[in-house]
């Protein structure tokens, strides 16, 4: 369980990224922080592994304040997947994936073996293992990033817009892959995105943020759609544009679901 207690962050130079943020993220679930740029979502994410230290308040993992932990040790115990994958360009794919293990003191041979297993788990051809990151497509690099995040089997996985830089088709593929992985592995995932569709697809708990890390609404996707807290949320999730206002029409004896403009989006089973 991750808990934010009245956390605030003002960066040197006076920029206030987060004003006063509190939240509990239950274990083995996915929490998505979603908001426009400047809402402090990445800052909040990076507080979990002490890439950013809060100016006020506390972040706790299983009731232990992360401020009491050694940052390097803490980071090694937490998976991190970032935009553009953040791979080391001078290391082969398998060495990149093995990095967290090697840093944790695992022997080279064992680290290799486990890295290859992790690559397989994220659906990458073992042939790619010997290549350098620049020889891979964006989608493949991102899978390598996920494999690296998972290889040391951390309890917590932090994902900072991991699929933001790949094309929509690959993104959809990666999203479904993550849903499948999470179903198998049951990690505590903190996921940051500006894409509400992605948030609803992946999140057990979705946190919609306004400027300065102000929480607009917290809830499951269904709860947020059923009772949006205010106009901001209504507009952010697209309830004001009719795309989510679906109704049923009878066509050839089947019940077809259409949106506010009458475009068909599916059938009732």
């Amino acid at each position, binding site marked *: 369980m991750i808990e934010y207690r009245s956390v605030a962050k003002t960066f040197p130079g006076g920029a206030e990224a987060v004003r006063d943020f509190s939240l509990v993220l239950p274990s083995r679930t996915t929490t998505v922080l979603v908001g426009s740029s400047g809402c402090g979502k990445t800052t909040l994410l990076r507080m979990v592994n002490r890439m950013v230290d809060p100016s006020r308040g506390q972040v706790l993992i299983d009731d232990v304040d992360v401020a009491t932990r050694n940052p*390097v040790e803490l980071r090694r115990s937490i998976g*991190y997947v*970032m935009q*553009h994958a953040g791979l080391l360009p*001078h290391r082969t794919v398998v060495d990149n994936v093995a*990095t967290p293990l090697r*840093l*944790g003191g695992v022997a080279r041979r064992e680290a290799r073996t486990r890295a290859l297993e992790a690559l397989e788990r994220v659906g990458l051809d073992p042939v790619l293992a010997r290549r350098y990151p620049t*020889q891979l497509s964006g989608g493949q690099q991102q899978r390598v990033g996920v494999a690296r995040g998972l290889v040391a089997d951390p309890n917590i996985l932090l994902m900072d817009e991991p699929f933001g830089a790949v094309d929509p088709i690959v993104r959809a593929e990666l999203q479904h892959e993550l849903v499948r992985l999470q179903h198998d592995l049951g990690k505590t995932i903190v996921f940051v995105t500006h894409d509400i569709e992605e948030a609803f697809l992946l999140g057990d708990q979705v946190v919609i943020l306004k400027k300065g890390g102000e929480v607009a609404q917290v809830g499951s996707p269904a709860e947020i759609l059923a009772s949006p807290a205010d106009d901001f949320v209504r507009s952010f999730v697209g309830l004001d544009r009719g795309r989510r206002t679906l109704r049923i029409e009878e066509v050839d004896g089947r019940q077809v679901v259409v949106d506010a403009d009458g475009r068909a989006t599916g059938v009732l089973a």
Partner: protein
Amino acid sequence: MRWFLDNWTDIRGLAWRHLWLSIVPVVLGFVLAVPIGYVAHRWRLGGSALVSIASVVYTIPSLPLLVILPSLLGTTFLDPTNVIVVLTIYAVAVMVRSAADGFGSVSEAVVDAARASGYSAWQRAVQVELPLAGPVLLAGVRVVSVSTVSLATISPLIGVSNLGSLFTDGFQRSFATEIVIGIVCVVVLALLLDLLWVLLGRVAMPWLSVRGAR
């Protein structure tokens, strides 16, 4: 050409000596300049001052330095160590800047990713930033290597023979052939040494020469 063949054994001896007097300062200069350059890169306030100081050192005339040095180091006047120390000082002076630039050329995103993966500051510097600064460091080494080979030719003036001896000797005897051959030998040596650094760079940085890099 005839003269060259007649004196081949002597010239070869001088060339080896010259090579030795050049490689040691370049390697020492690299080893010393990299940490200084790293500090200059990381240390925002003093960094540029450090680089400037290094550059100023390069403007100290070499002959006076060669003359003063034995008294500072306690070496004898004809000791080759004097030459090596002077050339190393110049190598450091030039390479500090390229080392600082090299570390500056490393992508912040990659450094950030390394930090997030749990690299300690020391591991990050050695295992991530140093190799990624490699291409710029190599460029610096190549420049310094050429200038060191050329600068080393002054050492016969303080009694340490090398290919530069062909200049002093040819000059004293008014024998142009010897001087020309000396120049050619120095150029060839500089080019061979340059080739060595390039090949070492290839071996040390395999990721730069992969096929199909996007």
